[in-house]
């Protein structure tokens, strides 16, 4: 083989190697870009779960028809009065509901004799509002109540991983039998603080409906209740207005960021 042939061969070999290297480099760069593309997008939830649900755009019919309201007899006001019941929302209540018997006490006026638990498991709604915790207000402590509430949230999330849960805090009643006003206020404050902790731990929203219903003394307005606890027509209207204007629009808080 002549010297020039060798040079040509060598040059060709170099070109080939450089080409391969370039291709590999290209591949590496592509892989790197692909990796970067894969890992650079993140979903960030900027909602502050430590705060009560802020005021928002008024809920429309689409939102309401995708909502479920369930609770004790206080929730009955939404069934008996107002416009929410005609909005397509599911609304259920259990008179004298004890949170520990949510899966055995039948819902009021339900022909199929279902429990609130049954209905929570069966619903296809994505916004679930819960109003619990007043019939246990005479308990000495609320730790077991919160444990039971946690169980309910776990059951809901297992059945419906994509739902948004709203915990409606207890509003401060004017009276409850068996307790002085001072005792009642202290217990409501206690159970509400524990419900807030529960909401934060579980990334549930919570609604401080005292904002909608209470007077300057911090208890529910006298013209909003007929027995010191249960909402009359005026009270229901105030609550409904509050619920319609205080919701979380996920698109405002949950965003995907890609770097």
């Amino acid at each position, binding site marked *: 083989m002549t010297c020039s042939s060798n040079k040509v061969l060598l040059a060709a070999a170099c070109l080939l190697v450089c080409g391969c290297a370039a291709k590999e480099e290209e591949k590496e760069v592509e892989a790197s870009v692909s990796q970067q593309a894969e890992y650079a997008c993140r979903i960030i939830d900027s909602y502050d779960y430590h705060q009560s649900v802020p005021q928002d755009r008024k809920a429309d019919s689409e939102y309401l028809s995708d909502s479920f309201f369930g609770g004790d007899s206080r929730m009955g006001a939404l069934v008996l009065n107002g416009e929410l019941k005609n909005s397509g929302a599911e609304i259920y209540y259990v*008179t*004298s509901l004890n949170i*520990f*018997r949510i899966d*055995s006490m039948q819902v009021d006026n339900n022909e199929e004799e279902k429990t609130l638990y049954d209905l929570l498991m069966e619903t296809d709604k994505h916004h679930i509002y819960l109003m619990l915790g007043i019939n246990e207000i*005479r308990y000495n402590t609320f730790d077991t109540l919160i*444990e039971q509430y946690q169980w309910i949230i776990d059951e809901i999330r297992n059945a419906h991983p994509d739902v948004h849960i709203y915990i409606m805090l207890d509003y401060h009643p004017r009276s*409850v039998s*068996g307790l002085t006003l001072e005792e009642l206020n202290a217990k409501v404050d206690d159970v509400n603080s524990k419900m807030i902790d529960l909401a934060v731990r579980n990334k549930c929203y919570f609604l401080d409906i005292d904002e909608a219903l209470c007077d300057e003394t911090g208890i529910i307005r006298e013209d909003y209740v007929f027995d010191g606890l249960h909402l009359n027509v005026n009270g229901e209207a105030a609550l409904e207005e509050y619920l319609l204007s205080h919701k979380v629009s996920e698109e405002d808080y949950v965003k995907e960021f890609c770097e």
Partner: protein
Amino acid sequence: MLKNFVSSLLVICMLAGCGGSEKNSSVAEKKTQNATAVAADIVEDLNLKDSMEEVKKRVVKGMFFQGEDVTDNACVYFSTTSGNSDTVGVFISDDTASILDYLHDYLEEQKAQTQTYYPEEVFKISNAIVDENGSMVILVICNNIEEAKTKVTEVLGK
């Protein structure tokens, strides 16, 4: 004569042994008594079987004992009818005093609660039967108070 004496002696010994075993089995029975079986028996005898259902252990622990582990040998039946306060509860424990305290608080709470929603049930709760025998506490809330009292006394061996 000797044979008669020995035979008599043997009979006496056997009888004494039987008496001793009966006593032992009575104690053993108390120790192994199952609240579920006792409660079911009371519900059956008071003709409440068709209108009551047994509740889960966590309900008993939460509603009656504020979450404390007072006893794991307990069984409670509640009425299946909305607003009906009928209750049969059997709680087996050596610490019957604590159970009685918890039941007292439970009944007070139930009376206050029921006053708001089902005032016609307050009388029944106010006349609840709560009794114990040192190792078992029984709670019965029902309309037929006298029959329930008789049954509870019988079950407790009083």
